[in-house]
């Protein structure tokens, strides 16, 4: 258990946001944490669609149950969150 701050680039947003997550969080948890700072604030919701997370610069999203610890993401690295 450790807090890891990440830089979140939520698709449709205009600014990178600091999102602190826990090392044991899954990517679904990470997506939810990022959404809490973007969806309904700066980005319109898309009900019924699933949020996915990928590391900036990669093509494939993480599996939804991958934990932050397992992902190898380092503090303040940038993730992209988008509606699938």
């Amino acid at each position, binding site marked *: 258990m450790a807090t890891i701050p990440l*830089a979140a680039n939520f698709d*449709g947003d205009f*600014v990178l*946001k600091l999102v602190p997550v826990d090392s044991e969080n899954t990517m679904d948890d990470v997506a939810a944490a990022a959404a809490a*700072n973007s969806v*309904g*604030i*700066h980005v319109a919701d898309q009900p019924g669609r699933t949020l996915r997370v990928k590391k*900036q610069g990669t093509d494939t999203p993480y599996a939804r149950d991958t934990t932050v610890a397992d992902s190898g993401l380092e503090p303040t690295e940038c993730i992209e969150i988008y509606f699938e």
Partner: protein
Amino acid sequence: MALMERSEWYDVARDTEWTPRYVTWEELFPPELSGGEGLPDDVWRTYDEPYKISYREYVDVQRQKDAGAYSVQAALERADIYNNADPAWISILKEHYGAVALVEYGAALQEARFARWCKAPGLRNMAVFGMLDEMRHGQIQLYFPHEYVKKDRQFEWSHASMFSNNWVSLGARHFFDDMLMTRDMVSTSFCANFSFETGFTNLQFIGLSGDAANSGDYTFSKLIQSIQTDEARHAQLGTPLLQMMIENGQRDKAQKEIDISFWRSYRLFTILSGIPMDYYVPLEARHTSFKEFMEEWIVTQFMRELEDLGLSKPWYWDIFMRDISEHHHGQQLGTYSWRPTLWWNPAAGVSPEERDWLEEKYPGWNDTFGKVWDVMIDNFVNGRTEKTVPGTLPMICNLSQLPIVGTPSQTLRDTSVVYKGRRYHFASEVDKWIFEDNPERYRYQKNLVDRFLGGDIEPADLGGVLEYMGLGSIGPSGDDAHGYSWVESYRKQLADAG
């Protein structure tokens, strides 16, 4: 008795040169302060300042400039701009004075360093006038807002901002420390006299004066143009130095310093000029967009000066030309969203009519930045004001100290490097290039997010951040300039549709 022509005595009078006997030339002008390494010693005496003025003329002309500006201010005090102008115009005054007034004293110190450390006697003489110019700018830009302090405590920031840890101040200090205070004399002259003063200050001090006159604020219009008449003179200090560098085989070095200072100046002015020009200036007074001012003063006029000297456009010209239509729109969204962190009250500038104007000036605005505003407007219209201020911090550039923004779904991305075990984030490839050119220069500075994550800000929440920035103690936090009255037209649209 007839006075001699200035040209008959000028060269003798200004040439305060002597041969040092008690110290060496290198001790008198240490390279780390004087710069110009590799230039032949005899080149400095040939420096010929293009804009000549005697002390007698200087005093006479400056007295008249001051008399003009102060008399307009006195005559128009009863016009009560504070209560009669659009509140967004008053926000421009607050932003301007807080960001500019104290910095002018820093510029006086910079000119004083020229007067001491420059190896060219002609430049030392003109730099003394430059120093006096900047002191005038500091004094007059503290005096003018002072009449408003009793009406509105946000004007306290005119004097206080640079002593605070407000994020805008952190950005301004990083910029001015880098450009004006911590380089050798020759490099400083390229950054300050050339890029900053010959280029970008024209935007704010002449461009905005037109908006001021259109908005009925003749006092401010007169003031900032009066200031720029000083800049037009002492900005000329740098041009012969650039020529000396180029003629002595140091063109590439000069070009790099221009490239660095041009980008840094540009990004700072997106906040200082870009946001007010496109969002705060009342629509009926807004005839020219930030992009159009940039095209007039920078893309056309400044680039011509650069190319006349034999220098080139910066290597990132394509990035820059795209950026002038985009970056400041992101910064407007950011400053408005995090409005409690500002020392002024931002205008949203997105009423239906204003959106038409933005779409006309920046085709595609509605489909990109406009979509973010749609979500915010929906929250305002439906009374979800708690959702209109984000609950976290933006990521901040380790060079510009500005939030890392981009065009939604197009250009927003992180640019980062790891240097000696620490990860640094940048708001563009150019900011990263500047850092990597000299990482030891920049590596120790902590931006707001570094301070937040490092435990310097307690409690680690928005309240703690505001307190750290001096909001609520120096002056009240920012809030919508018009008290959200602009939301009414959207509320009416919704009611009509429903």
